């Protein structure tokens, strides 16, 4: 009889391996903020949850003072798209304030706008040769 080979131990970190599943954004007007993101991203307004690629965007009422983010570069949401011009068109239709108009970079084509609460939101069409961690995740179309 041959003994079973030892079972390799699971990596210790697996029990606290974390998945980023939601972002909570404080807003002076959560409903307007949610509607803005739906329009900006071309999402259906039928679904009760605003989910983008497996991550839920939640909006809570805040009484932020000042109303716009003091440090918008502190936390930036990068939305990956496959058609950057269509994304640009949606943002222009929303009359979004551009911080950086579409620009070709080593990571792809990137543009930055302000959301209604002054947070930086970027639309990114990743370059084919950008690192895998910066590529579009295709599992959540």
């Amino acid at each position, binding site marked *: 009889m041959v003994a079973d080979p030892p079972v390799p131990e699971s990596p210790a970190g697996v029990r606290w391996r974390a998945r980023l599943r939601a*972002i909570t954004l404080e807003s002076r007007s959560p409903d307007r903020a949610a509607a803005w993101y739906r329009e900006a991203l071309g999402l259906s307004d039928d679904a009760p949850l605003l989910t983008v690629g497996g991550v839920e965007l939640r909006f809570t009422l805040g009484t932020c003072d000042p109303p716009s983010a003091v440090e918008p570069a502190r936390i930036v949401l*990068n939305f990956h*798209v496959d058609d950057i011009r269509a994304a640009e068109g949606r943002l222009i239709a929303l009359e979004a304030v551009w911080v950086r108009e579409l620009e070709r970079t080593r990571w792809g084509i990137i543009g930055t706008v302000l959301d209604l609460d002054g947070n930086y939101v970027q639309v990114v069409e990743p370059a084919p040769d950008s690192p895998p961690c*910066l590529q579009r995740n295709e599992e959540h179309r």
Partner: protein
Amino acid sequence: MAIPTLGSILLGTTNPDRLRDWYAAALAPGDAGGVFTEVTPTMFAATFGDTSLLIDGRSDVAGENPEPGRVVLNFHVDDARATAEHLKGLGVTWLVELEEREGGLFGTLVDPDGNYVQIIELKE
């Protein structure tokens, strides 16, 4: 046309090495070896589920987040109690220690830059 995805969340920081080490130790990225990839000498990336966290050394933010409640990152884990024990072992700062609420276990900690990070284990 495909629906957009939240490809990544960028954390601007004056101390990217410290923030990278904290997230790698605290929350175990899914990348091989649980490590961040060095994108540039001051930018690091790792995946947490379907989204990447980018840690970007910048000069247009202060050392500490002046408005930490504005944006909260919510991480789901399989075993929140084990995660909390692990985090206590690391000596992290808790805003709200792990507690049972309707829907599951929730705790909020503060990363070294003062950003709020919520740990969640949803009930089945």
